[in-house]
């Protein structure tokens, strides 16, 4: 522990010196490339992940810019956006052209992991800066880490970890895994299996279903036949929604089994309704109604968009604000300097508690274990979660000691 904090201090000191040196080199006057801070928002605006980040995320980003006053140190902030259509080459091409033609300073958004990994490669090549808010894959700050991007809101590690651990502690120690049959599902399944076994539970069976699947009845029946206490859903998006709906129709929970959703968002729960999702345990990075601060911001968002924000949309605002504040303070938009200076500043706002950016680019912050309310408990359309526990930032994410990222000295 002491050793850890010492290295942390040393790093802090080193980067402070670096920052000070840069500031001195550039002089006191503001140094902004092309006298404009240019932020590009890249996300799925029309496909599967549209409701998770999509146009709402862009609105959140614009809110941040407006709240900041539309300019940094007298230099205007320009926001533009593009739809990546969940295609890696569309995303990579777009960001490449942003560098070559638009002088982009910050790339925000980013949802589908294939797109994100492709974009981070482009960011590294062009020595740019990106903040990933939408993606789930923990590999983004692990084997795919670069010095040029930050992963803000959540990743699969705390989701699997937080939910699985809590569930096993509550006594759910035999698991049946329903896994989407692709890299992401496999990774999630492996994470969960590890946590379950470490906490004294056992994975007694599982089935890997094709991605995407619309009819889950056969798999639910297999899960029922397994006799496991818990059915873990290592899938995402419409697969998870379909699985939960089907489980409810087949009376899975009535027969004594419980579902554990590993990657579920507010918009999914809203879409399914509380009848099907009640009492589902999940881990979230943020919830709109978790406290006054969060609620106040969400109310403003609601007035603009007409929906309550997902954690991703809130994360876009939070990360953009953090970026702009850092730029204002540092007086430059040079990516390298800003990346270092952002890590200097703790991240503490309506979204993030006890947050800071690690050297692998992971923004660690408190995560929350939540339970979906029953229809009787819910007070309104968007009153969906009850926060059960806080998972402290330091425990939530994959520890640096297990990191495969090149930026971490192990």
């Amino acid at each position: 522990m002491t050793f850890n904090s010492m290295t942390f201090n040393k790093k802090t000191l080193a980067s402070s010196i670096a920052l000070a040196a840069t500031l001195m080199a550039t002089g006191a006057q503001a140094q902004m490339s092309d006298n404009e801070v240019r932020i590009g928002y890249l996300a799925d605006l029309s496909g599967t992940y549209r409701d998770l980040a999509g146009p709402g995320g862009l609105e959140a980003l614009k809110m941040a810019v407006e709240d900041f006053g539309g300019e940094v140190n007298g230099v205007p902030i320009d926001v533009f956006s593009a739809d990546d259509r969940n295609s890696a080459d569309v995303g990579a091409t777009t960001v490449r052209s942003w560098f070559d033609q638009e002088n982009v300073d910050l790339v925000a958004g980013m949802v589908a992991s294939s797109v994100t990994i492709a974009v981070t490669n482009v960011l590294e090549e062009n020595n740019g800066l990106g903040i990933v808010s939408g993606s789930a894959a923990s590999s983004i700050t692990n084997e795919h880490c670069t010095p040029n991007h930050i992963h803000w809101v959540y990743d699969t590690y705390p989701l699997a970890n937080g939910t699985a651990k809590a569930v096993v502690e509550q006594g759910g120690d035999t698991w049946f895994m329903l896994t989407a049959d692709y890299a992401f599902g496999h990774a999630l399944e492996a994470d969960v299996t590890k946590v379950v076994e470490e906490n004294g539970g056992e994975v007694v069976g599982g089935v890997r279903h094709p991605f995407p699947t619309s009819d889950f009845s056969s798999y639910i029946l297999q899960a029922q036949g397994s006799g496991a206490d818990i059915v873990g859903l290592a899938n995402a998006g419409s697969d998870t929604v379909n699985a939960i709906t089907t489980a409810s129709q087949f009376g899975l929970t009535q027969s004594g089994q419980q579902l554990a959703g590993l990657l579920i968002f507010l918009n999914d729960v809203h879409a399914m309704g509380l009848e099907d999702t009640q009492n589902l345990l999940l881990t979230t990075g943020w919830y709109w109604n978790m406290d006054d601060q969060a609620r106040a911001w969400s109310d403003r968002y609601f007035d603009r968009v007409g929906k309550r924000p997902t954690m991703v949309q809130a994360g876009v605002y939070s990360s953009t604000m953090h970026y702009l504040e850092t730029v204002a303070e540092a007086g430059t938009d040079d990516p390298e300097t800003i990346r270092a200076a952002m890590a200097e500043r703790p991240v503490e706002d309506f979204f993030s508690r006890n947050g800071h950016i690690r050297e692998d680019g992971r923004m660690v912050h408190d995560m929350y274990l939540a339970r979906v309310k029953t229809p009787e408990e819910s007070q309104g359309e968007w009153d969906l979660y009850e926060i059960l526990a806080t998972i402290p930032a330091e425990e939530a994410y994959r520890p640096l000691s297990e990191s495969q990222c090149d930026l971490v000295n192990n």
Partner: protein
Amino acid sequence: MTMIFGVPLMVFMGQLMLGLINGAFYALLSLGLAVIFGLLKIVNFAHGAQYMLGAFAALLGLQYLGINYWVALLLVPLVVGGLGMVIERLILRRIAHLDHLYGLLLTFGLALIFEGSLINFFGVSGSSYPTPALLEGGMNLGFMFLPTYRAWVLVAALVVCLGTWFVIERTRLGAYLRAGTENPALMQAFGVNVPLLITLTYGFGVALAAFAGVLAAPLYPVSPTMGSSLLIVVFAVVVIGGMGSILGAILTGLAMGLIEGLTKVYYPEAANTVIFLVMILVLLLRPAGLFGKEA
């Protein structure tokens, strides 16, 4: 416990039951495609979108007009089928004289328009449609717990399929239809209004898709993309059955549901692919499909 290839008999029976239910669903959708192909010779690529429109119409009807499930089951196919007839009159008719591939491309474009527009208005997460009160709960069959609604889907789909088959194979209207398929010019000469027959047929095929959509609404989240993944599976069913063959579509739909169901037990990873494997094998051995006639 009796085991079948390493799977307990009970589980096996349950899986067969589910396969049959999905099969009935495939049958219903393929039937619409087959009817349309039979007379118009168009591969209706918009079928998935029309199925989705059916589910959406039911959902919106419930939310905004308070139309309940049972009324929707009757009303929605009429409305969406009517829309289909308008499309046929205004658009498809203009390309009727061309290569059939143009029909495929045109309906593909229509599907993109329907899906894209709805995504813009309603997002992609979808909404759930409540199960009608009469069909809530389930029954214990001894080997599995079967939700009542799924049993209803099986019955409703089979009744509509067989009804359609009966109308087409055993009534005067069906005779016109079949004759129109064989030789439209001759039918016209006999004084049958063939263009009207074509419009009605397309409308009927679309109505079947919409009916399937309403049936599906309480089962799956109603979202603009719900039809697109189903579409190519249903195509495969129609091709395997023999394009344009009514009975072929129904029987193949059921069979493919069963085959897919078993794949989900023995090799779940391939569940989305097995139908295409069957399709390739069938087309190699019987080029016109299982029930089709060689051209």
